[in-house]
């Protein structure tokens, strides 16, 4: 039985999430209050999980893509396409299962399209996926004919607003997907393949990884994740809003992945931390709503907190912290040695008088402050 990996649970991301949640609690004392109502949990914290689920799912797929040194700008538009397909299909009399399958197939197809452009045609990912980012919303508008297609199919609505064991369905879906994806990349060699392609695609190919196939698979899974998020968002409002569903969410997904420590240069990624990143973003959104600040502050507050988190994570901050950390250890050792030697032979009046215990010697990194 291995030791509980505490240092893997406590890191910049989780501390930042705890910080944002704490801030919310200070602004709104009832933030952590969770009630049992109509057979499900009800409270602001549940809202954070529930509303954060679509972005968390997007972030999961996006993390895989970014780990291969790519990016998928089309996920927001793919969400709109998937929602539009699901809504129009149930309205046309198809079964819920068929509508969901249709929407997932649409998402998968969009992902394969992106993957083919990136892997086979070697188009740069940012441009390749920009095509679908623009065209996808148009396709969604064509499907819905520009209006909001509402539906009342109870099974489809259940995906967005129902609950399982008291937890909202979107949370359950997002959690299962995260678990599945994490196991897939960390318990098999797939994660290593993705990292290898992200670090150096040519080297990975020469080493025997079928990098083209891998890229297509990664982009298709990202499209699939976007479709799942799209179905959830459509089910949440009982309708497909082609103009607004998933609008700008690709940026939230990229941000969540980056907050989660995934490198935009490829090769380093963490799906659970990307999910934590998505929750940080949503915790800020929900916090702003319950805090009662005027809406003009929303974006400024968000930008400020994000900047702070990214600054803490930046290589510069890590360097500074490590520098102080090293100094601290040395100072501790030095003062401890001084104290011991003074205990053994307390000759002079103060331990600080001893040459081996001088401030300059024990605290070399801050000695400039007294010189």
């Amino acid at each position: 039985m291995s030791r509980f990996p505490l240092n893997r649970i406590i890191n910049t991301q989780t501390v930042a999430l705890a910080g944002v949640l704490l801030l919310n609690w200070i602004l709104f004392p009832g933030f952590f209050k969770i009630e049992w109502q109509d057979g499900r949990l009800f409270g602001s914290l549940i809202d954070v999980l529930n509303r954060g689920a679509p972005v968390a799912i997007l972030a999961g797929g996006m993390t895989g893509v970014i780990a291969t040194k790519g990016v998928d700008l089309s996920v927001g538009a793919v969400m709109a396409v998937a929602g539009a397909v699901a809504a129009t299909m149930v309205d046309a009399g198809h079964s819920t299962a068929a509508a969901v399958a249709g929407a997932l197939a649409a998402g998968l197809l969009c992902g394969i399209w992106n993957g083919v452009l990136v892997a086979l045609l070697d188009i740069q990912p940012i441009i390749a996926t920009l095509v679908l980012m623009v065209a996808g919303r148009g396709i969604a508008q064509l499907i819905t004919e520009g209006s909001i297609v509402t539906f009342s199919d109870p099974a489809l609505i259940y995906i967005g607003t129902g609950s399982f064991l008291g937890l909202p369905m979107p949370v359950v879906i997002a959690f299962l997907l995260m678990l599945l994806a994490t196991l897939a990349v960390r318990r098999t060699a797939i994660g290593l393949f993705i990292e290898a392609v992200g670090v150096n695609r040519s080297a990975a190919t020469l080493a025997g990884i079928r990098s083209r196939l891998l890229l297509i698979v990664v982009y298709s899974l990202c499209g699939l994740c976007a479709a799942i998020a799209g179905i959830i968002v459509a089910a949440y409002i009982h309708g497909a809003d082609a103009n607004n569903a998933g609008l700008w969410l690709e940026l939230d997904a990229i941000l969540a992945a980056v907050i989660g420590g995934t490198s935009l240069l490829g090769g380093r990624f963490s799906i659970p931390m990307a999910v934590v990143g998505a929750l940080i973003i949503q915790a800020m959104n929900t916090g702003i709503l319950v805090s009662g600040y005027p809406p003009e502050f929303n974006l400024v507050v968000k930008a400020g907190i994000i900047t702070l988190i990214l600054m803490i994570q930046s290589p510069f901050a890590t360097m500074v912290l490590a520098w102080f950390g090293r100094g601290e250890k040395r100072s501790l050792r030095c003062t401890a040695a001084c104290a011991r030697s003074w205990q053994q032979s307390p000759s002079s009046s103060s331990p600080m008088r001893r040459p081996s215990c001088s401030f300059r010697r024990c605290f070399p990194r801050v000695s400039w402050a007294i010189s």
Partner: protein
Amino acid sequence: MTILKRLALAAGIATALSSSALAADMTVGFSQIGSESGWRAAETSVTKQEAEKRGVNLKFADAQQKQENQIKAIRGFIAQGVDAILVAPVVATGWESVLGEAKEANIPVVLLDRGIDGPEDLYLTSVASDQVKEGRVAGEWLVKTVGDKPCNIVELQGTVGSTPAINRKKGFEEAIAGHANFKIIRSQTGDFTRSKGKEVMEGFLKAENGGKDLCAMYAHNDDMAVGGIQAIKDAGLKPGKDILVVSIDAVPDIFKAMEAGEANATVELTPNMAGPAFDVLEAFKKDGTVPPKFIITESKLYTPADDPKGEYERRKGLGY
């Protein structure tokens, strides 16, 4: 080259002849912004209907939210020698030169729905709604309905900084200003969308004791109200009874909610901007009647007493 020129000339004469021969049926160019919202789609289809009803030959150009496309379309209309041009300007600035060209060609221009920054002699008239009045009508309805009871209101604002959000907030506040029992206790932006409206309302309900102390929800558009209604239902309360719902726009789905007793009032932002525009154009063409510079459309209040089912059926085909 000369053949082409001659053909063009012949075509020009032909259009000139046909337009002079049939003074009653006008050819009107309509430069629409694009399909940014359901309301805009409805405006487009109502404009086409109105044109058909009056025997107006409508040339429609979709600008896909770009001013340069609108300018191109207007230049195209001028080149085709239309009798009048309708424009729903996507932005307020940068119209002097192209509208000046229309003026030189003696083609009257009518602005629909939005105004422009520029000399007023560039256009014949503008047809638009009074957004401050829309907010005021909504507020007055609430004041009349609730009476003297204390009333805590939550407001779902439109996109921060957008003109309709500013004006609809202002009008509503004007209406409740003289009544101390009405208080807007929370106000946040729902970006005019359903999902944001629902999310914001969920937050409000948590923050205000599960919504038990709330008396009314005022949304700057119906889409946000529909989202808010779902949030109220999810919280175990009855929208329309426990919390009154008043909003603006009168899109079909709010009439569906009204029919179910979940919404109480909506103020119409009519998609029929073209009707009044065609009226003034016909009068102007006939005997040169110069209309007033600003034509304000009616801001009609709809409540469940106004046959919500019929209103829904009447509107659902318009492309909202």
